[in-house]
């Protein structure tokens, strides 16, 4: 996002949480979508986050090694977070008995998306909390840089 490392790190989190919010919004919008082009009801989507480390694109979180020197540049590899993938949730769809429905099967059951409102709302709140926390991190980083400019004045 920018040159400053802290902004890059926090920026990555803002992007990731925004992506998650988008996915949640898509889930909520399609809560009652019983037919899709691929056939069957809409499948709930989730995001998979992983730690973003320099010189490492492995999905597993890697323990940061000790850095026994005063140099702050280059040795710490934490670069924030990334969205590894957006997964489709393959759990069984919800079955609602409604023979009158045009999408009802032979048994009279309609397949509804496996989206739970409570879960989506909780995820949304978590995402928002994280978003706000990372915004604060950006503001703090900005104050630190501004303060550094006051050295010697």
């Amino acid at each position, binding site marked *: 996002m920018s040159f400053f490392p802290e902004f890059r790190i926090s920026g990555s989190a803002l992007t990731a949480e925004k992506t998650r919010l988008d996915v949640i919004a898509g889930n909520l919008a399609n809560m009652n979508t019983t037919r899709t082009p691929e056939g069957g009801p809409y499948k709930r989507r989730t995001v998979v986050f*992983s730690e973003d480390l320099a010189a490492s694109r492995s999905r597993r979180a890697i*323990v940061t090694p000790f850095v026994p020197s005063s140099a702050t540049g280059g040795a710490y590899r934490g670069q924030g977070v990334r969205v590894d993938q957006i997964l489709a949730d393959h759990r069984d769809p919800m079955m609602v008995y409604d023979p009158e429905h045009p999408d009802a099967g032979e048994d009279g059951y309609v397949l509804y998306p496996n989206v739970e409102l409570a879960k989506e709302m909780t995820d949304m709140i978590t995402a928002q909390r994280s978003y706000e926390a990372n915004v604060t991190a950006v503001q703090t980083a900005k104050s630190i840089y501004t303060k*550094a400019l006051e050295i010697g004045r």
Partner: protein
Amino acid sequence: MFFLHDETTGRLIKGLDAAALRQQVTAHNLANLNTPNFNRSDVSFEDELMRARQQADTPLARTHEKHFPITPGPEINPTIKTDTTTTRRIDGNNVDIEREMLNLVSNQLRYNTYVQRLNGRFDNWRYVINEGRR
């Protein structure tokens, strides 16, 4: 760097290094607030200083007079430690948002304090140089 030869100023500068690094580490922790199996990290510097100072008060005994006397007060450098001991949530993540936010604030204040002390030193030098004109 002949103005900054004294120990305290050297430590102040290292403190600034540590604070800047801590900001970055805390930002990384916060960015991974919801990453499964993530371990938070910390930067330790001031604690090491305090420990070294406590050790300096109790000089180490020598078993043989030819041994080098150990003068405590080695060079302390900021170190990054990964924390694997704090409680985890179900997704394996041990980042506590309140703790990180508090770290942001306290670290910022620490940075400000170090900058202020450093400026104090520079002011002293500037005074000596300029008043020495007379």
